[in-house]
């Protein structure tokens, strides 16, 4: 459909993407439950580096096969196979394949000025999220929102976006520091 084609058209040219992010978790009435900010880097296919800088430090790195979650406060690294379900790893929205996304979601498009908002409803019931929304401002992704069945929402706003700039491969590999607990989870 028209929405899916346009979304694919916006996503396909993205090979790398990096931005500052501001993540908020809001309850059904829009009250903010959590806030975190940091920087992220993405590289197709399936690689990303998601670094929370405040109010705590946390790093999530996908090398395309495994995801490493490093929590320095807890001195813990969790390693698990990359979960290709976008709602479990929203960063895959950009570094995954666009047509795989539109295959799994009904896509509706709305335009307001230069803002294009795509609302994605999963075709098969999804455990985590009931609805995904991507908003592009002048063809650049600026906002991602994931709402669950109780109305709780994760809203991620992106700023200082750079698309297709070169990104050092070392950002997408993770060296497990010594002295941490390593927890390997099989999906």
């Amino acid at each position: 459909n028209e929405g899916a084609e346009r979304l694919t058209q916006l996503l396909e040219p993205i090979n790398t993407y990096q931005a500052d992010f501001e993540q908020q978790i809001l309850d059904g009435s829009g009250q903010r439950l959590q806030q975190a900010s940091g920087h992220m880097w993405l590289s197709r296919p399936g690689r990303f580096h998601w670094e929370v800088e405040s109010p705590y430090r946390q790093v999530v790195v996908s090398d395309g096969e495994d995801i490493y979650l490093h929590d320095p406060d807890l001195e813990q690294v969790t390693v698990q196979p990359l979960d290709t379900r976008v709602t479990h790893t929203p960063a895959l929205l950009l570094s995954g394949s666009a047509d795989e996304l539109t295959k799994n979601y009904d896509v509706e498009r709305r335009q307001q000025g230069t803002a294009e908002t795509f609302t994605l409803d999963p075709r098969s019931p999804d455990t985590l999220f009931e609805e995904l929304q991507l908003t592009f401002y002048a063809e650049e992704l600026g906002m991602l929102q994931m709402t669950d069945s109780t109305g709780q929402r994760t809203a991620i706003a992106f700023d200082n976006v750079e698309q297709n700039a070169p990104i050092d491969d070392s950002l997408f590999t993770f060296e497990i520091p010594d002295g941490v607990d390593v927890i390997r989870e099989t999906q």
Partner: protein
Amino acid sequence: CATRGPVTSDSAERGPWQDQVTRVQALTSWTLAGKVGLKTADESTSANLDWRHTPNYYRLLISGPFGAGRSTLEGTAEKVTLTTGEGRVSAVSAEALLDQQLGWSLPVSSLDHWIRGLPAPSDAFERETDALGYPSQIRQDGWTIDYSDWMPADGLWLPRKLKMQRPGIEAILIINDWQPEA
């Protein structure tokens, strides 16, 4: 993980516990953001913790990165409700609800005291203190709570890192942002 000795950012600044204990006891409202690391016999997980507390209402958000897999526990005097991605469940006690829904549980009713370095009023307890009188360990209700770091927050020194253990479960709480409210 190896237990290190108490790491106090600057104990010279930290005044005696006695000077602030009444204010810590009087503290009944706060917002805090931190982490919880949980180890049981068969699983080991970590999550973000966001806690809003007032005398007659509390809300604990437990969530993974990107807010995935989040669970919000809300409590009032009458009832406790857990909201997850799948829906809402209510019960009379938080402990039973967490155990039923998440497969693990923490003594939420005592946590609002332990998080401040205080024993819960309900039961007998044993306590060891450091040179300044701050609790280094509290034993209560079958749990052992070790305090290994403190942080300044609005004129009070409150726990930054505590480990809660009972046979079969170990929970590490790290607080990154303490906002006590008078």
